[in-house]
């Protein structure tokens, strides 16, 4: 069954006290259109019933991704850009390509701002 794509789930910071300031902070999201990103290899990931928890030991933060966010996360493999990921989402969810692209770009921008993904061409030399 096709379902409405969820709005991009903001990554949730582990520290509740900092959550509010995090929301207020300008994450200065970079433009990610056209670029390809890859997940940092040193993160601890746990898939739980189609959703995901990510632990970043460098910042001691934990993040939770819902099902849609997790599928975008998995597609950050260095081989797909935001447009390709959005196209894939339109096949699985009842969403227009334009809206999907916006959501994917915004979400990947958050991942970049949090340091969870890096541009594919910069990923060499990062901890695996």
């Amino acid at each position, binding site marked *: 069954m096709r379902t409405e794509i969820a709005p991009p789930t903001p990554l949730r910071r582990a520290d509740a006290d900092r959550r509010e300031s995090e929301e207020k902070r300008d994450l200065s999201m970079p433009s990610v259109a056209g670029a390809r990103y890859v997940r940092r290899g040193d993160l601890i990931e*746990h898939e*739980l*019933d189609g*959703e995901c*928890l990510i*632990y970043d030991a460098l910042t*001691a933060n*934990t993040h939770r991704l819902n099902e849609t966010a997790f599928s975008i996360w998995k597609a950050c493999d260095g081989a797909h850009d935001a447009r390709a990921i959005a196209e894939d989402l339109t096949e699985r969810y009842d969403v227009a390509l334009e809206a999907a692209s916006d959501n994917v770009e915004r979400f990947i921008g958050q991942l970049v701002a949090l340091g969870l993904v890096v541009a594919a061409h910069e990923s060499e030399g990062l901890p695996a």
Partner: protein
Amino acid sequence: MMAYLLGKRETRHFGIGVVNASLTTGIRPLLEQYSSIYGRCETQTAGKNEIAVSVRRRPPSLRRRRRFEVAVNGRVQFEPLRFDELLPYIEWSLNWEVPRVMPQYLQLHACSMELDGAGVIFPGASGAGKSTLTLGFLTRGWRYLCDEFALVHADTLQLHPYPRAICIKRAGFAAVEALGIAVSKGRHHLKGAKGYVSFISPTDVRADAVGRPCPIRYVIFPKFEAGAAPELRPITRSEAAFQLHYVCFNLLRCRAVGLDVIAGLIRGAACYRLTTGDLRATCALVEQTIRRDNREMAQTA
């Protein structure tokens, strides 16, 4: 003025489930109070990784009522204290030391119980109703592991007992007495901002109250709402795991990666949010749900 009956300092050893502790003091009434709730745990010799708590009277000062100090492994942790604050601060001292001396356990802020061999944890902040729920379940035949912590072994993911005395805040006295459990008058202790509390030994409720190590099968987040009808709402495992990591005391200090332990234990558990109001109705609802789930699982198997 109250006489504190100082005598020769004496050390008593206790094995409170997997937590070993000793209390050294010359304050006779304190030793008697402690033994009255932990006498069931008293041992003849020191246990492994024993947490040594000592209480002594401080030199005379102008603060005549606050004349005691609590030290853990030789280091003063709390001072100056009144006599009626000593028991809660001894408990706090132990709780704070557990993650340090026992890094093999992940320590979650949760009441932990056992029903038919299944571990059930109720994570929640202070005031969520953990201790009151504990007593409610104890009167229904559940077994007690701890009213404040879930100690999860990082390797086996088993829930282990730390059967402390159950600490009830004054606001909960009436609900506990309605269960037919006496909250002994004259034995109330001042616990910081929480106000007056009473300690109840689980074996005073039922002789066979204390449970054994068991796997965690249910993670239930309680929230107390006065007068609310009890409600159990399923939540996803990732939501539960995410909430659990908020209530973990040693996520970064556990021997294993804390999130690995949380994810591991949550994979084998059903997860719910619980609105608690009426204590008896809440306990009945939780028990019915667990027994129904167990029956369905048995049929599926």
